[in-house]
């Protein structure tokens, strides 16, 4: 190796702060995702329900006589966002963007390099969460707001917002809740494995397995089983709370509590794994 000038060069410019470091990690992850065609296709496919809902709004506006069948009120956004979960689109996006997020770093040893930089574990976790949150919000919040703007654009007045002034906030809050929930779930499972595939299988088993369990419990209890038995069921169940609608069953608050506990557990698992990884490598 030829010896070049490696004499000490102190950086004389200004170093950016902790937030910029988190952003650098998040940006790096995001760019890696955006370079993958399969991910872009998945994101596009996740917008199909939004186009269908857009058609529904268009028809309702152009053919007012159809309104009794195609009523546009805040329940449309609740149903749309719930469907994004129950149609598994949010699950798939979370799976693709998050299952290998920590697992790959553990497998390759990149985590050791990251943590040798001026980056705390919390910075690392936030940096890993941001791209995943962005991906999930891109298929929930973004189409939700786009539908709202589309509706307002077609309307002569803003009666929808007069009748439901909290609708934008509800869309925002529910989308964020879903994003945080699935983000922490998938990252927690990702942190438990060194294999992206194994983490993906684990997350699918948890999501679909718990949903199957919920379905069985529903049959056995004649429709009385609490939705929080299922990862998917709980997230659909709490939608009514965010949109201020009458809950269809009495388990919404229970689902909210269970989801909160699962998120706290998720953070605990990730933190524990990030610490233990040092020993394991």
């Amino acid at each position, binding site marked *: *190796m030829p010896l070049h000038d490696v004499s000490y060069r102190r*950086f004389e410019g200004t170093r950016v702060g902790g937030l910029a470091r988190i952003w650098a990690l998040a940006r790096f992850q995001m760019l890696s995702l955006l370079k993958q065609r399969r991910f872009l296709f998945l994101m596009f496919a996740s917008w199909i329900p939004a186009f269908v809902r857009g058609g529904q709004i268009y028809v309702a506006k152009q053919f007012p006589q159809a309104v009794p069948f195609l009523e546009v009120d805040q329940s449309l956004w609740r149903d749309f966002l719930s469907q994004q979960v129950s149609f598994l689109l949010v699950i798939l996006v979370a799976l693709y963007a998050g299952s290998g997020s920590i697992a790959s770093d553990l497998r390759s040893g990149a985590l*050791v390099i990251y943590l040798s930089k001026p980056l705390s574990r919390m910075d690392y976790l936030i940096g890993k969460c941001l791209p995943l949150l962005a991906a999930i919000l891109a298929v929930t919040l973004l189409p939700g707001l786009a539908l709202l703007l589309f509706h307002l654009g077609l309307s002569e007045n803003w009666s929808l917002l007069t009748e439901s002034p909290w609708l934008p906030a509800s869309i925002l809050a529910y989308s964020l809740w879903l994003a945080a929930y699935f983000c922490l779930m998938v990252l927690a499972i990702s942190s438990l494995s060194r294999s992206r595939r194994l983490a993906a299988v684990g997350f699918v088993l948890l999501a679909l397995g718990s949903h199957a369990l919920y379905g069985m419990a529903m049959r056995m209890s004649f429709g009385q089983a609490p939705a929080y038995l299922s990862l998917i069921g709980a997230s659909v169940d709490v939608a009514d709370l965010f949109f201020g609608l009458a809950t269809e069953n009495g388990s919404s608050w229970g689902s909210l509590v269970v989801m909160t506990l699962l998120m706290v557990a998720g953070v605990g698992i990730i933190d524990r794994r990030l610490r233990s990884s040092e020993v394991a490598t």
Partner: protein
Amino acid sequence: MSAVELQSVSRWYGTVLGLSRVDLSLGSGVTALLGPNGAGKSTLIRLVSGQLRPSSGNVRVFGENPFANPSVAAHLGLVPEEEGFPPRVSGKDWVCFLLRLHGYGSTESSQRAEHTLEEVRLDTVAHRPVSTYSRGMRQRLKLAQAIAHHPDLLILDEPLAGLDPVGRREMIDWIKAWGNKGHSVLVSSHILHEVELMTREIVLMNQGRVLASGNVHDIRRLIDAHPHRVRLSTPTPKILAAQLLDFPGIRSISFSEEREQVELETKEPERFYELLANLALEEHITVHEMTSPDDNLEAVFKYLVEP
């Protein structure tokens, strides 16, 4: 002030002892961390690089506790044993990204990344995905990410692993040069003869304990249990051997007239060297060469780790 200071540091992994009451002080220059597998080298590196918290005792790097301390991490460069690259990323993007984690802006990061990749001779492949790199290139990329921010303390865990002989030689020269510039360098390795080319300052570990630290020759001198072997090349081995028999510090002596060689063991090497000089002068005995086969790192390692 020492770059690295460990005071009575222990680290347990559950019931397994990783490091046991280690006291150590490292200054500038290259220091080699030696020991067999499971000796505690990686644990020590992780403690110094702030990735592990000691179970007891104090670790100080530039006077500060390094554990999860970004201000210390800013002055450290770590070349881990693992590769740690995302496969699709290019060499330049990887170094650039890690510089951003150090807080450098995009322009500065890009310039530093280019300069560093040139230093490690990866400039021609800087834009290729890391997955297409050879093992040696990957090793140099690991080095690049560790030195791009010009750390005051560089820690290398098995930096010679996977390198071909030319690559090893280059890496050794580079590490020596970096140390000679006044930086502190801690190198963990088990390839003794190559470590010997890098530095004479060692920390020898086994079973979580530091067996010896300091200059190899000083350490060898302190090992009383094993007499020092000295090999002399002389045209008159029989005469020299006969003369040396009178010296009380000699434990054994053998000679070969065919090879014109005398080999002996002594517990008092300093006195022996003095005597030999006198013999050569007074008795006109010619000595072409004098070597000490066990005054090296390998012997020290053998005597201390495998007694």
